[in-house]
């Protein structure tokens, strides 16, 4: 059955359909709702439609369609009856809801003085479900420490939906709690989109470890600066780096004795090397470990030598 925190995001009519679905909720990845079009589910990396009895179908013709009023109602619940509070997020095209699930929206964009301000007449909703998988970093963690037990600057590389946020969350938890012979470290987590810790009213809903300080909904560059000054973390964690303004702060992090744990969208190391943003980092070998999540897990050192079999 689909979990209640997910069905509660949907309109009453859609809730009834989703409550009938008999699936493993942990393998449900995406729910796509488009006005006057059938509901599309991404389940176990495959695409399905559903009928009114909650049966998964390959054929779209018998799939349940979503009306515009259901989209509106769903948005009301997603925005916690308060879409005004998510104006900035909706302007960017997505918002994060309780549980860390990311909801992408598309509709008519309102532009003010050449800048996108908000969105109206929303006709498409994509709910990407976050899954907290404790232990998914077990195989990776031993490679991220040197012989003296010190954590190494690490970059997780993966294409979209490759599981980098899930991996980052579990790494943060394990680094923070400590494991086997490794002592727990103070982790500063900048959770720009509330996807990692999934804070609700400031309290993390996901387990991010007992020594983790979370800066929720804060832009990465500003957040990292703030944490460095205020919480003196031993490890700084952030999701999806790559904006120009991040580069300067990252250099600051590299230079101040704090270790970095970050993720980035990409297929592999070679692809990243071509990006202007990463050129200097590769030249100076600032990252000491690369974890590539693409058809399996590959771990590389600063010289791009593969460490795991």
């Amino acid at each position, binding site marked *: 059955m689909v979990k209640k925190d997910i069905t*509660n995001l949907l309109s009453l009519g859609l809730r009834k359909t989703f409550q009938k679905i008999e699936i493993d909720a942990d393998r449900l990845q995406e729910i796509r709702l488009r006005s006057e079009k059938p509901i599309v589910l991404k389940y176990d990396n495959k695409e399905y439609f559903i009928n009114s009895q909650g049966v998964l179908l390959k054929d779209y013709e018998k799939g349940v369609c979503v009306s515009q009023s259901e989209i509106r*109602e769903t948005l*009301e*619940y997603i925005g*916690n*009856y*308060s*879409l*005004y*509070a998510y104006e900035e997020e909706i302007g960017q095209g997505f918002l994060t809801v309780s549980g860390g699930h990311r909801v992408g929206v598309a509709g008519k964009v309102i532009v003010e003085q050449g800048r996108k301000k908000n969105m109206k007449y929303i006709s498409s909703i994509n709910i990407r479900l976050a899954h907290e998988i404790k232990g998914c970093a077990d195989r990776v963690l031993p490679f991220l420490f040197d012989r003296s037990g010190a954590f190494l600057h690490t970059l997780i590389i993966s294409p979209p939906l490759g599981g980098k946020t899930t991996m980052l969350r579990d790494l943060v938890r394990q680094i923070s709690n400590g494991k086997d012979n490794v002592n727990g470290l103070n982790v500063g987590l900048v959770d720009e989109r509330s996807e990692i810790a999934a804070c609700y009213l400031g309290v993390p809903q996901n387990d991010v470890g007992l020594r983790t300080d979370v800066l929720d909904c804060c832009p990465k560059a500003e957040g990292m600066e703030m944490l460095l000054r205020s919480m003196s973390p031993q490890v700084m964690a952030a999701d999806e780096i790559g904006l120009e303004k991040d580069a300067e702060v990252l250099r600051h992090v590299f230079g101040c004795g704090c270790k970095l744990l970050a993720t980035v969208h990409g297929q592999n190391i070679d692809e990243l090397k071509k990006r202007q943003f990463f050129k200097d980092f590769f030249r100076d070998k600032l990252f000491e470990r690369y974890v590539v999540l693409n058809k399996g897990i590959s771990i590389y050192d600063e010289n791009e030598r593969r460490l795991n079999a």
Partner: protein
Amino acid sequence: MLKLLGSIMVIASLSGIGFCFAGGLKKKLELMEAIKTMAYLMHGNIKYANATLPEALASVTAKHKGELKGFLHEVTGILEENEGESFMVIWNGAIDRMFPENREELSFLRRLGEIFMYTDRRMQLSGIELFIEQIDTDIAELAQELKPKCYLYKMMGILAGIFVVIITL
């Protein structure tokens, strides 16, 4: 003796009606002031904390001591449960349940609920500001009328009682 007792009862009951009307007017003013206070607190929560409606209402519920506390508690609880009802259905439903008597001033509460439905933050805030201005004017008018009207209701009650007694004797 019986006539005297009856006369006293008639005068007392009609005076009571007059006092009741005067009390209703005071209650109306109190509720309007409570709605205004709530609108102010909601405005602050939305403007400075960018709080969602359930968060803002929960915060206002904790601070509010007036007649609206029960109503706010009810709305906040239903919003947090998220059982699949639109905000206006929840808001108006709570008004009907918590204030079963049909009071004129409840229209202010219903109007405030409609303002909370705006999806644009600036529109939401200006809507609340305009609402506060309007209710402020109505409160001032009512406060001005309150004393003479209360006096009138009370006196009319007493005089009506005396009048009935005189014509029946």
